[in-house]
């Protein structure tokens, strides 16, 4: 399904397809007209996708069909063995994780998990974890430390779930604990923001030695809608809020919040998952290679220094 700003493209695509069909069935030569239209399509795609506003990128980050954490895990690792449960309360389907091989090396991987359709989204709580999800993530961090395996975190959540049950079970507490647990890892830790990086619920698994972000992903302290509701008193002003929050990959690279942008195929990661996976694989490979020479304490100090330096102020 086309997003609002993609409609002119899909309309032109439909027109071209229609003409192609007519030319084939009728035998009329329309190659001249078609080549003009194809050229126009190319230009239109370029104009649209090279100049995306922050709000349009937010929509791409949420686009139906965008690769989820499980898609990426299956796309870039082999022999994924999913592990379940927090050993305290339940298994949170909004967080997945387990053991896998990345380019032949055993790794531990965790990610927020959205559903691919409405039914699955209800099961996955739209990728919004409860405390048990973060406890599962922390369990897997323990595993990574104990067996000296690199830890890979895939971020894709609108935020941690804001509900009664989550508050009763200490949502704020587990997020803080998860930040602390990840900071203390003595193995290489890489976080990749795949789609939505919604505030503390994202950061809970975002304390990597390196933080990578997909070209059209967003990461901020609040969603554009919630920010608009508070500051503009109007959730409809989300587009303005998205601009003000400077939540795009490029903004975050300039602020030092992320270290590297992973390019997406034109029109977004969902247009060509194969290229998307190849790009993630390449960036992750390089990042893990950079971290390989560091010993356990050096990895901890490297992470400390990375986050210690973030913030802007005047002495």
């Amino acid at each position, binding site marked *: 399904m086309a997003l609002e700003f993609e409609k002119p493209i899909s309309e032109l695509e439909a027109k071209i397809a229609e003409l192609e069909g007519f030319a084939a069935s009728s035998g009329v030569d329309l190659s001249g007209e078609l080549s003009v239209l194809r050229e126009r399509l190319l230009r239109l795609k370029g104009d649209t996708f090279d100049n995306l506003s922050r709000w349009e990128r937010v929509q791409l980050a949420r686009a139906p069909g965008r690769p989820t954490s499980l898609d990426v895990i299956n796309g870039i690792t082999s022999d994924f063995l999913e592990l379940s449960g927090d050993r305290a309360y339940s298994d949170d389907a909004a967080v997945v994780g387990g053991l896998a091989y990345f380019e032949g090396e055993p790794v531990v991987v965790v990610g927020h998990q959205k559903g691919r359709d409405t039914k699955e989204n209800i099961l996955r709580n739209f990728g919004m974890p409860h405390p048990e999800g973060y406890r599962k993530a922390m369990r897997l961090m323990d595993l990574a430390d104990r067996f000296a395996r690199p830890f890979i975190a895939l971020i894709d959540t609108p935020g941690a779930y804001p509900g009664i049950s989550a508050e009763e079970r*200490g949502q704020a507490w587990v997020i*803080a*604990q998860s930040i*602390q647990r990840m*900071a203390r890892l003595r193995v290489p830790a890489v976080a990749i923001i795949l789609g939505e990086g919604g505030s503390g619920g994202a950061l809970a698994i975002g304390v990597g030695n390196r933080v990578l972000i997909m070209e059209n992903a967003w990461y901020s*302290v609040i969603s554009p809608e919630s920010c608009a509701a508070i500051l503009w008193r109007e959730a409809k002003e989300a587009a303005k809020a998205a601009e003000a*929050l400077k939540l795009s990959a490029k903004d*975050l690279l300039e602020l030092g*919040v992320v270290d590297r942008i992973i390019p997406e195929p034109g029109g977004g990661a969902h247009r060509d998952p194969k290229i998307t996976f190849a790009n993630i694989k390449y960036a992750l490979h390089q990042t893990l290679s950079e971290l390989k020479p560091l010993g356990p304490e050096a990895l901890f100090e490297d992470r400390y220094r990375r986050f210690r330096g973030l913030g*802007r102020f005047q002495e």
Partner: protein
Amino acid sequence: MALERLFRRRRAQGEARDVPELWVKCPKCDAQIYKKDLEANWYVCPKCGHHMRLSADKRVELLSDTGSFQQTTGLKPIDPLNFSDTEPYPKRLERYQREAKRPDAIVGGRCTIGSVPSVLLVMDYAFAGGSMGSVVGEELTRGIESAANENRGVVIVSVSGGARMQEAALSLMQMAKTTLALDRLWVKRLPYISILTDPTTGGVTASFAAIADVILAEPEALIGFAGPRVIKQTIRQDLPEGFQRSEFLLKHGMVDKVVDRRQLKDTVSDVLKLLYPRD
């Protein structure tokens, strides 16, 4: 009553600024309290025990040993994102600075608490609802690191609506930065006490405030991750009585003790003495 009504009328006409308010009404029990009595009682209603908001400076006075506090905070905020909503961020900052009479939402420094060498850091709700941006995060981090270097305990008083929106992702990063800094205390076996006051929510609760060695809360303080309004909108149900209040958190195992403000100094001193290295 008549006197109070008189002042209220004059306030409405915009003349009240030079008239000191002598009486304060308790928002919980409606008792009229002589303001000097309220101040002497650390803004706890003498009739019903309701805890009103206490200023950051008063907090410092309440918790630090008399005459021991040396302020170290003073960093100034900037506008790293060029943020503007209905008003540019620098304009808001100027107003907050004028109203709160400090550069950002925190005051802190070295002191002794019950004779234990400490670093005391207090958030200030009067400045942007105590929200945490780069300055608050950096001051907390510097305070914690200096405590680790100088063998001091750390006491942080939280009162905050959460991370500051106008610094967006940089505010979010302060959650990680402050949390990481606390590790410096851990390795040196220095105690950290977190005091949660009304209200403490969002990114402040979900970082340094929640991972202390001992967590104390003032009575009936609103404490949580998501604000009640957000939760209500999400689940479209009324929230149970007492939800996200200190006593609710105590019941659910999230805080160690709910402490009356008038006993807070003694409790903090006791915990510091019990945990601080003995030699």
